[in-house]
């Protein structure tokens, strides 16, 4: 049993092979440690380069709870700087996005360039002896990595190299980005923002949970046990329920745990040969013209349903979007969903994808709203002190080793991916 203190041994005692202590989800002390040890040093998703196309463009976001700016500097590079004036600590920029060639603090007018370099301070005759502008540049993320326009940052100078961290998940990003005829996507079609009264890990686990669908999403399934169509060109969605049971087709899905907490699930077999609509056919022809028929066939054959780049971003191939998880408190999380726009695809295809995403992942959607209810109720249920443990043992001992070494696969209705996340969680949380 974990004791009240949270030294490394106390943290380690929260996770056992097939179960997790409730405090991992409910204890504010654990949450504070997560902000320092996990979100304070892991590679975190920041944004996409297309959100800052021109010099001076910025978006604001938070890494853990730390406010940051992602900017496009005058030299064309993307920068991640802390949104905190080096003078008196004021958050420099409040808007979600915009363009500023000079970032001027509203309080005393300290002025920075988009890379965070301090350019001037008003009333410079008042500066203390030895005051140097260059000592007061904005703090920057010690490490930044970019893959196919997706910008990640670590707030720690040490830790796993970006290429090693993202390596096993590149295929999940490629899976979406390659669907654009020119191989480029843009995140410029707005955002769905929702709030969950639950711990952030509920959303991280749920993104790759195939066990919940027949039950949580029962209200989206018709009398034949088939979900509504979620892709352009399909007449109907996946077979989820067969009679009163989870459908055999659904059980064909596999989940993959590939280290560092990363994981993904394979797609359900949909009727690929029948997928057709005016919009989809035009899009397919555009893609074939750009990359050739064989390559287009390969790109459009679904292999990946949803993935998690641990800890804070999910790439979803079925309803194309990027899902960013923002922990606000131990029991409060914001989730931001960005539709993926396929650059070079017919506008009609992007319009259809955005509409489908309204239906599946807006706060008022048919799918996500029942998930949010499940997360909030899990958080409420975990207030019970009579049962300490959360069970994550499904499939324990039946993991199938795959490449690369250490990676594993199993039935997607099992809980391999949750255990994989908690292995990474322990590594971050107990590493000195």
């Amino acid at each position, binding site marked *: 049993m974990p004791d009240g203190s949270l030294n490394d041994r106390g943290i380690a005692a929260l996770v056992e092979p097939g179960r997790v202590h409730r405090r991992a989800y409910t204890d504010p002390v654990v949450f504070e440690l997560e902000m320092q040890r996990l979100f304070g040093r892991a590679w975190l998703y920041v944004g996409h380069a297309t959100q800052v196309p021109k010099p001076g463009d910025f978006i604001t976001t938070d890494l853990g709870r730390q406010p940051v700016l992602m900017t496009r500097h005058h030299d064309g590079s993307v920068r991640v700087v802390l949104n905190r004036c080096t003078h008196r600590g004021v958050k420099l920029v409040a808007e*979600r996005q915009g363009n500023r060639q000079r970032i001027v603090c509203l309080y005393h007018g300290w002025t920075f360039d988009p890379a965070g370099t301090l350019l001037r301070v008003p009333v410079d005759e008042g500066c203390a002896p030895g005051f140097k502008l260059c000592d007061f540049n904005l703090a920057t993320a010690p490490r930044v990595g970019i893959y196919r326009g997706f910008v990640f940052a670590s707030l720690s100078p040490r830790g796993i190299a970006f290429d090693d961290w993202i390596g096993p998940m590149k295929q999940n990003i490629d899976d979406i980005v390659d669907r654009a005829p020119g191989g480029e996507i843009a995140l410029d*079609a*707005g*955002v*769905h*923002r*929702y*709030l*969950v*009264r639950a711990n952030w890990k509920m959303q991280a686990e749920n993104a790759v949970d195939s066990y919940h669908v027949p*039950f*949580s999403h*029962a*209200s*989206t399934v018709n009398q034949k046990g088939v979900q*509504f169509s979620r892709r352009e060109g399909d007449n109907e969605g996946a077979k989820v329920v067969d009679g009163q049971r989870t459908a055999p087709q659904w059980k064909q899905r596999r989940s993959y745990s590939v280290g560092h907490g990363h994981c993904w699930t394979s797609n359900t077999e949909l009727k690929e040969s029948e997928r057709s609509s005016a919009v989809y056919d035009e899009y397919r022809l555009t893609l074939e013209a750009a990359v050739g028929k064989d390559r287009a066939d390969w790109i459009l054959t679904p292999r990946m349903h949803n993935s998690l780049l641990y800890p804070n971003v999910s790439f979803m191939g079925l309803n194309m979007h990027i899902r960013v998880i923002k922990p606000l408190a131990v029991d409060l999380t*914001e989730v931001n*969903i960005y*539709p993926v*726009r396929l650059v070079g695809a017919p*506008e009609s295809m*992007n*319009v259809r994808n*955005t*509409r489908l*995403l*309204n*239906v599946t992942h*807006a*706060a*008022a959607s*048919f799918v*996500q*709203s*029942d998930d*949010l*209810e*499940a997360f909030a109720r899990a958080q409420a249920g975990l207030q019970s002190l009579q049962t300490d443990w959360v069970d994550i043992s499904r499939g324990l001992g039946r993991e199938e080793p795959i490449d690369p070494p250490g990676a594993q696969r199993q039935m997607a209705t099992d809980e391999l991916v949750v255990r994989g996340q908690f292995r990474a969680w322990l590594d971050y949380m107990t590493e000195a």
Partner: protein
Amino acid sequence: MAGEYEQFLIHESRLLDERRFTDWMALFTEDGSYWVPATVGQRTPFGQTSLFYDDMELMRTRIDRLGHPLIHVQTPPSTTVHLVGSVIVEPGVPEPQPDIGLPPSEVLVHSSAITAEFRLDQQRLFVGRQSHWLRRVDGRLRIVRKRVDLVNCEGAFEAIAVPV
């Protein structure tokens, strides 16, 4: 005239408050739509996120789901009260705007609405400006488009299950 439109808007909001969703849906024309933008002053529902953008097919799916016994986010259901006011009729006949999915209509009525929703010991408010594009079908007013611009449309929302 304005009185008739006001009565119509009050009737519409009462149907929502009484959870008569199928009757509410029947107020729309077959080419009708219900739109709640996700950004202030959003120009189009196409190619951009919206909180709601339902044509009649999608609305039927939504309303069917609201009647499903296993819709967890409405178990227990929420109760709502709409207050509609500040009704004003735009002069002239509105232009159809095919590029944003707006078919021909006869009149555009603006109003403000406050909706209180209570569920699971929590109350929240939806406050917004409404625009109703209306036309008569068989002598009865019908909604060609309902647009609701919530004051907090750019904010983060907890799950929304019933039309606002």
